[in-house]
């Protein structure tokens, strides 16, 4: 009912993007070079951002492109520079167990989707519940066109306060684990004092990263 008339183009976009995600995911599973894995995870985020936009979730797509593709790739690269470049090869026998577990879980989940409403069904419980109500009352309540913003800030303000606190706490936790970062500044200044003539570029980790 839901997928009957909507255009072939939309279905094609869906197939191509999800297929790309599959290819990237399998490549990540098979690769051993951590640099390639990190870059591919950035590509995975970008492709999924495109998919979000294709299914009308523009805000999510925007966030995924900025956060998933930009920020998490930068953080992963930083962590990779501090640890190692390649993963150890796996023993092929030990991969069998996880594979079986994943296939079994996947089959069970797919069996569960038989009861789910069709994709795009406007009368599914998820789409007729509070989401639709937000769409209908948001303009009267707040006068803001983008319904996502009042839901984020107003209707679910507690949720967002919690999320902001989690991000803040995560930032503090990382800083407590790794140091706040002034150390490298102090060290570089010390090095510059020692070797004044070529003080401009000390090859720090991030410069190396742009070279590669």
């Amino acid at each position: 009912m839901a997928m009957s008339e909507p255009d072939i183009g939309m279905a094609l976009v869906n197939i191509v993007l999800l297929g790309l995600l599959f290819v990237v995911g399998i490549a990540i599973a098979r690769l051993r070079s951590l640099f390639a894995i990190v870059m591919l995870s950035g590509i995975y985020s970008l492709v999924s951002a495109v998919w979000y936009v294709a299914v009308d979730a523009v805000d999510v797509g925007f966030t995924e492109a900025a956060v998933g593709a930009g920020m998490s790739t930068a953080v992963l690269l930083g962590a990779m520079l501090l640890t190692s470049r390649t993963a150890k090869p796996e023993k092929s026998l030990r991969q069998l167990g996880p594979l079986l577990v994943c296939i079994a879980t996947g089959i069970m989940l797919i069996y569960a989707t038989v009861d789910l409403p069709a994709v795009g069904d406007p009368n599914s419980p998820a789409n007729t519940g509070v989401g639709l109500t937000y769409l209908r009352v948001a303009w009267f309540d707040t006068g803001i066109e983008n319904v996502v913003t009042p839901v984020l800030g107003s209707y679910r303000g507690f949720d967002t306060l919690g999320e902001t606190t989690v991000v803040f706490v995560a930032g503090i936790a990382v800083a407590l684990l790794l140091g706040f970062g002034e150390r490298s500044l102090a060290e570089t200044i010390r090095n510059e004092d020692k070797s004044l003539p070529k003080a401009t570029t000390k090859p720090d980790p991030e410069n190396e990263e742009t070279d590669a």
Partner: protein
Amino acid sequence: MLLFILERANYWAVIGLMMIGLYITFASGNLIKRLVGLSLFQTSICLFYVTLGIVAGGTAPILMDPDTSGGHGGGHGEEAPHAAIDAVLTAASGGDRVADLVHTYSNPLPHVLMLTAIVVGVATLSVGLALIVRIREAYGTIEADEVREIDMQTAIAQEAEQEAAEKEALA
């Protein structure tokens, strides 16, 4: 049957992606690869939520002109299935606060939930990476089995030391 499959193909694709993430998390011994698998898994969960919020023929949940012109009235879109909700809302709020939508929009609620989940996901990912950096500094490796091996050897050495100390105390 074909229609049934087509209607659920999106779910199955997303579940497949989820399982790839799960497999990477399970199968790889390298801790960074493991975290990448975990973030893949998380992205797939977001895909699943957004899939649930798709409305056929809908657009992004940004209200367009006729829907924003007045509080109520307007055209008659697809309100027939939602008459029950309408009745509840009108009863609750005096009939003035609910607009009939002219256009069809996709469900904004999954978008909001996933938007915040993505940001929190990268924050927690970086906490995990910070822990991995510390593990690497303590053990010199980020392979799970090597870390386990070093732990085992340390435990054995400590036990031997303790036994030696006890023997010395007895003697």
